[in-house]
C-alpha cells in the first residue's frame, strides 16, 4: 500500500459527504432545522419533535449510514439498531406504560359518560380514512393516515409501523405537530358549533372516586378491550399496567421509573429513529403533502365529532353538560382539555372546565387505541 498526498486527500474527499449530497437531502436537512425551530422556539411537543427533527437531520447526512442494516463486513448503523424497538412495536407500548403511570383516570370514572365523547372524537380517523381511499391510497396506508386523527402519538406510531412503515415519518411528524397546534385548530370550530349559552354552562362538581375503583378500573379495561380487540393488547395492556402501578400505591419505585427513566430513554430512542426513517427519497413525495393535509382534516373532524356529541349530551341532560368538553375527547392530553378550559372561561369567567374535560381527554386515549385495534383487525 502506497500513499500520496493527492490520493489520500482524494480518499478523504470521496468518503466525505459533499461529493454525493443530493438537493433532496439538503432540503430534508432544512426541513429538520425547521422542525428543530418549531420544537424549541414554538414549543411544539418538543419531547418528541426535537428528537424526531434531529433524527431527520442525521438520517439525511449522506454516507453516515446511521440507519444501514448490518452487512457481512460491517455492523449496522447506530439508529438501525435503536430502530428495532419501533419495528418490533416495543417502544410505543413502553411509552404507554409511562403514560398510564402518569394518567389519573379519576375524572373518567367519576363520569363514565365521558367515554361517549372519547368515542365520538375519533370521527376524524374515519373521515380521513375515506378521503385517503378516495385519493387513491391503499387501505393499509389510508388506515395509518386516518389514525393521525386519534391525536395520540404512540398509537399512531404503533399502527403505522405495522401497517405502512414507509409512511411512518410523515404520520409521526404530522401527529405531533397537530397535537401541538391543538390550541389553534380547535377554538374556531368550538365557537362555530356551539352557542354562547352552551359554552357558558357550568358543570356539577365531579364525585370523589375511591382508591378501590381506581385500582379495579385498569383491570376491567384491560380484560374488556383486549378481549374485543386483541391486536391492541400491547398498547392497552401496558397503559393499564402503568396505571395499576400508579393507583396500587404499593410499587412506588416501579411507578416512578415507568414515569421517568424508562419513558425518557424510550422517548429518545423512538423519536430519533422515527425521524431517521424520513430519508429524502421516501419523504419527499407528493404523498407526504397529502398526508399532512389529511392529518389536519382528521384533527378537525375529530374535534367536530366530539363537539357534536357534546351538544347532544347538552340537550339530553337538559343543559348539564358543557359541549366544549367534547373537543377534549380527541386525546392530545392535556392540551385539548386545556383548550376546553380556556374557551369555557372566555364564555363565562366563572367557568372551570379543566377537570370535566379531563374525562373525555383520557377517554380519547382509550378511544384511539380501540380505533387502532379495529383498523389492525381489518387491515393487519
Amino acid at each position, binding site marked *: 500500500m502506497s500513499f500520496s498526498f493527492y490520493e489520500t486527500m482524494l480518499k478523504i474527499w470521496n468518503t466525505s459527504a459533499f461529493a454525493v449530497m443530493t438537493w433532496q437531502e439538503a432540503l430534508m436537512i432544512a426541513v429538520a432545522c425547521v422542525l428543530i425551530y418549531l420544537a424549541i422556539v414554538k414549543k411544539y411537543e418538543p419531547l418528541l419533535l426535537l428528537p424526531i427533527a434531529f433524527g431527520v437531520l442525521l438520517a439525511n447526512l449522506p454516507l453516515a449510514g446511521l440507519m444501514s442494516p448490518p452487512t457481512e463486513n460491517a455492523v449496522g448503523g447506530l439508529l438501525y439498531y435503536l430502530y428495532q424497538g419501533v419495528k418490533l412495536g416495543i417502544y410505543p407500548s413502553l411509552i404507554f406504560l409511562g403514560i398510564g403511570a402518569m394518567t389519573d383516570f379519576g375524572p373518567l370514572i367519576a363520569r363514565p359518560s*365521558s367515554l*361517549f365523547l372519547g368515542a365520538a372524537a375519533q370521527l376524524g380517523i374515519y373521515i380521513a380514512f*375515506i378521503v385517503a381511499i378516495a385519493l387513491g391510497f391503499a*387501505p393499509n396506508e389510508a388506515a395509518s393516515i386516518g389514525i393521525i386523527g386519534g391525536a395520540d402519538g404512540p398509537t399512531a406510531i404503533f399502527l403505522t409501523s405495522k401497517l405502512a412503515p414507509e409512511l411512518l415519518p410523515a404520520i409521526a411528524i404530522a401527529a405531533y405537530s397537530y397535537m401541538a397546534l391543538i390550541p389553534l385548530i380547535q377554538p374556531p370550530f368550538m365557537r362555530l358549533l356551539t352557542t354562547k349559552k352552551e359554552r357558558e354552562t357550568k358543570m356539577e362538581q365531579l364525585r370523589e372516586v375511591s382508591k378501590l*375503583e381506581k385500582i379495579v378500573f385498569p383491570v376491567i379495561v384491560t380484560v374488556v*378491550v383486549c378481549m*374485543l380487540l386483541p391486536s391492541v393488547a400491547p398498547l392497552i395492556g401496558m397503559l393499564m399496567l402503568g396505571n395499576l402501578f400508579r393507583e396500587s400505591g404499593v410499587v412506588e419505585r416501579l411507578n416512578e421509573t415507568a414515569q421517568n427513566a424508562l419513558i425518557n430513554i424510550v422517548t429518545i430512542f423512538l423519536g430519533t429513529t422515527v425521524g431517521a426513517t424520513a430519508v429524502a427519497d421516501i419523504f419527499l413525495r407528493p404523498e407526504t403533502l397529502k398526508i399532512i393535509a389529511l392529518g389536519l382534516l382528521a384533527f378537525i373532524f375529530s374535534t367536530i365529532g366530539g363537539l357534536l356529541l357534546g351538544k347532544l349530551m347538552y340537550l339530553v341532560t337538559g343543559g348539564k353538560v358543557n359541549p366544549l368538553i367534547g373537543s377534549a375527547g380527541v386525546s392530545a392530553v392535556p392540551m385539548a382539555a386545556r383548550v376546553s378550559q380556556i374557551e369555557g372561561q372566555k364564555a363565562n369567567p366563572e367557568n372551570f372546565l379543566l377537570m370535566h374535560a379531563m374525562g373525555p381527554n383520557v377517554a380519547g386515549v382509550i378511544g384511539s387505541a380501540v380505533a387502532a385495534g379495529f383498523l389492525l383487525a*381489518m387491515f393487519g
Partner: protein
Amino acid sequence: MSIADSLLVSVLGLFVVFLVLILLSFLIHIQSIILGYITAYQQRNAEASHTIIPVEDQPEEADQGWTAGELKLIGVDEKTAAMIMAIISDETQIPLSELQFKKIKAIDQIN
C-alpha cells in the same frame, strides 16, 4: 378499495369504538355501584366493631408505619432504623441489647 367500502368500514369502525367505550362506561357504572355497596357494608361493620378507636382504621398510618415488636417505625424502613439504632448505640457506648427504642419516625426538615 372502493369509496363505498371505505364508508362502510368507517361506519363499522366508529360503531366498534362506540360499542367498546359504551360497554366500558356501563361496566364502570356497575363497578361503582358494587364497590359502593361493599364500602358501605365494610364501613358499617367497621363502625360496629370499633367505634372507640377508629383511628386504627386510617389506611395511611397502616401503610407507613411498620412495627417491629415493641418498636414503632413510621416513615423509615427497618434497615434505616437498624442503622440509626446501631449509630446511637455506638456513640453512646451502650450495647444495642441494653438500649430500648419505642418509636423511630421520619420527620421533615423543618418541624
